[in-house]
């Protein structure tokens, strides 16, 4: 690419009204068959998932494959996997904001929505794994009559509770604040639409009435005055500055679940960093998958351009290499340590019962992003989509290897046991995906999946600087 060719690649060059129409058409129109098909599949999956959860409450955790040394199984794998997916949303909305990367504007809304749904999916898993989820209130320190039973603040699992709930709150708030001007625009459109169009039935009329009312509430009386914008932008800046260390801390605390232990393979001080790089990696893979599908399904190629896809791909390549480097450092330190237990973890990963999972991980997460080096391959979006899906499958198995292998062969050979997932474990994993996609499919039909007010503001900035196409 020549050095200046793509400078204005993000300028859309359409009238504002057309931008509104383009982005709101999936929200204001009636969904087509493809959407319904995927939605019904996901919803069915979600219902099955809820059924499995209910059954596990009645029958007990014995239906799953978890056992004495490997007591975490798919739950903690899923928790780590989904939280990592979620973190890319914050990376895009907060860190790229601080770096003034304006290409984030078209994708930040979808990425943040992905964060919210991924964190919800993740947070449900330890709840099932509690075994007695009706005692979940015991996790919170408040005056009670349970006598000496009190939170164990030494436990990183408890830190997780606070980290994840803080993270969820901040993400939700950030997301909602970003939606405010868009809600106001939708409200204004809906009010005008109410005067122009009538529904065919009385129920339809009521529903339209309700939609206007809901949008009015959601917009919180936003009028877009200069003062409101001034406060708004200050707040976005502050939230971005707060969310950035937050996302690092959540990922680090998640890794502390493992590193604070004395189990070789878990107690490796570089894991916090590896979790952060891994989270950017798998999260951006998920964003890329979603965005590639979304932009072709909803005709958003003018907004999410090839350049956006390219940028996301470069981030994947960079973080993919960091993940490789993290693995290399861990392996080198195990060699350097001259500690038989440390080294055994790796021998076991290379040739033990779970070697298939380890090598599957290595091949699926370390090789695919390198297609970015070749122009022909990186411009092929079908191939990029396949790459991101493969990477995310690989990242799931990476978590599997991290969570399962060190404890399956712990210090006491008499207690060595393998973790063999049962059909219920598999259903839980599929259910997580069903839950995530149900929410995401609802999101693209209910809320604007591109932050169109921000897009218009950038466009106005370009025109003011004389950089537009006109």
């Amino acid at each position, binding site marked *: 690419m020549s050095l200046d060719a793509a400078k204005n690649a993000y300028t859309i060059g359409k009238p504002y009204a057309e931008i509104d129409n383009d982005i709101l058409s999936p929200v204001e129109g009636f969904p087509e068959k493809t959407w319904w098909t995927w939605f019904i599949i996901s919803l069915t999956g979600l219902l099955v998932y809820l059924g499995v959860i209910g059954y596990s409450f009645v029958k007990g955790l014995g239906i799953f494959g978890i056992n004495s040394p490997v007591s975490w199984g798919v739950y903690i794998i899923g928790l780590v996997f989904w939280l990592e997916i979620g973190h890319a949303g914050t990376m895009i909305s907060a860190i790229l904001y601080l770096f003034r990367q304006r290409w984030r504007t078209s994708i930040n809304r979808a990425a943040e929505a992905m964060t919210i749904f991924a964190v919800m999916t993740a947070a449900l898993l330890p709840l099932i794994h509690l075994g007695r989820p009706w005692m979940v209130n015991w996790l919170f320190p408040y005056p009670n009559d349970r006598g000496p039973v009190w939170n164990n603040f030494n436990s990183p699992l408890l830190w997780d509770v606070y980290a994840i709930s803080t993270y969820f709150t901040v993400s939700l708030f950030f997301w909602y604040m970003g939606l405010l001007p868009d809600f106001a625009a939708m409200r204004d459109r809906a009010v005008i639409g109410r005067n122009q169009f009538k529904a065919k039935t009385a129920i339809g009329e009521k529903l339209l009435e309700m939609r206007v009312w809901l949008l009015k509430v959601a917009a919180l009386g936003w009028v877009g005055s200069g003062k409101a914008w001034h406060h708004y932008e200050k707040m976005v800046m502050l939230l971005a500055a707060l969310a950035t260390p937050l996302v690092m801390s959540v990922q680090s605390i998640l890794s502390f679940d493992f590193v604070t232990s004395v189990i070789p393979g878990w107690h*490796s*001080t*570089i894991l916090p960093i590896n979790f952060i790089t891994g989270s950017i990696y798998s999260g951006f893979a998920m964003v890329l998958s979603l965005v590639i599908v979304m932009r072709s399904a909803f005709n958003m190629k003018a907004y999410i351009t090839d350049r956006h896809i390219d940028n996301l791909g470069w981030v994947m390549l960079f973080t993919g290499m960091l993940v490789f480097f993290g693995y290399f450092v861990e392996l080198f*330190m195990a060699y350097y340590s001259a500690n038989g237990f440390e080294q055994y973890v790796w021998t076991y990963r290379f040739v033990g019962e779970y070697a298939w999972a380890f090598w599957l991980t290595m091949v699926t997460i370390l090789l695919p992003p390198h297609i970015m080096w070749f122009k022909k391959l990186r411009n092929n979006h079908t191939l990029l989509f396949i790459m991101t899906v493969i990477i995310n499958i690989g990242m799931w198995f990476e978590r599997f290897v991290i969570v399962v292998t060190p404890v399956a062969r712990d210090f006491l050979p008499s207690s060595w046991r393998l973790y063999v997932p049962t059909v219920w474990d598999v259903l839980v994993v599929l259910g997580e995906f069903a839950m995530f996609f149900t929410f995401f499919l609802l999101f693209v039909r209910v809320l604007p999946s591109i932050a169109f007010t921000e897009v218009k503001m950038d466009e106005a900035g370009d025109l003011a600087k004389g950089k537009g196409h006109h």
Partner: protein
Amino acid sequence: MNTFKLPQKMMTILVGFIGIGVLSMAVSFLLDVQRGWAGLLAFAWYLTIMGLAGGFWSATQYVTQAKWSVVVRRIPENTVHVLLVAFALLAVVATLGIGNLYEWSHADIVAHDVILQKKAGYLNTPFFWVRIVIYFAAWYGIGMYLLKLSKSQDESKDPHVSHQLLKSGIVYLTIFAFTFTFAVTDFLMSLEPHWFTALYPMYNFAGMATTGISTMIILILLIKKYGGLKAIGPDHMHDMGKYLFAFNTFWAYTVFAMSMLTWFANLPEETYFYEKRFTGDWAYFTSFLWFGHFLVPFFYLISRDTKRSEAHLMNAAWITAFMGFVDVIWMVYGAFIDNTANVAHAETAAHAEQAAHAAPHAGHFIHGFPFGFIEIGLFLGAIGVFGFIVLRAFEKGNQVPEGDPGLQESLDFHQPL
């Protein structure tokens, strides 16, 4: 050519700094040979990280095709010259000083030590020398290549050079990641050869970046004070301040992660690293490092006004540069703490064994408070060497990369509110 020459007075001051450094080194060797060698290693390593940080930083700018930083680039690019001096000093340490500093270099000790025997495949003298040569050949070779390439653009104004810089930058960063990890393991971690932690290279990387950015800021502001580098305004320095703030915070993150996780898991073969550094006077020294390196610059730099004011940014940069040297001293001198008392008072046999591992070989102790006039002299000496070499090289070329296609954008750069 748009060159700049620092007044002779400033150069004399820098030579004076070098003199103080040489004098401190000599005094240190006369008073205590062990402290002398440890000081020389710290001094040479500090020069190494300052020389490396410039190359690393400019490579990131080539690779991300950052435009704002074009005018800032010449000082970081020129830091590579320092690596020659650092290499010469480290070569002395690795030949004449190796017996005093590195326990694993003694065949008789290794013969009685199972762990060191297992590590002998990596930690042995010939391989150590080979590795040092490889590191410096790679760092200096690629660094000089990047500098030459970047300078060639001044005349040719060829935009394709930027693309070549991007490609070579990727190669540099990839090689840097691996060589730096090994170098930290070799020079610093193997001072206590029984000990290891996987985050240590990353911790040193954060320290390197913080120190490197600080020293770049010091030189840039010094040149600006005497009328050079007019193209760099408060907006560029603001971004340099942000870099300093970010890397310093990242340093604190790595310190916290490493120390907290070691403390929490409480494995005797790991904890002695910290136990030693919290015994006696060292408790004050460690606290001084953690507070001074992180908290003071953190609160100082958090304000936008500090980063945009030349005087304040200069203060902050001196603090972080100085604390960067304290950090190196903390790592190097810490290996030679007298912990005989810890061995005697260990609660269990396992602890006693580990504390014995922690003790330096053959009584190579460093007594007394680890930081005094000698170390302050060494710090000034290192800054003198660094400043003298980099400024001399800087004076020979253009002040800004005049042929870079991003130059105009860089000149026009303004911080958004």
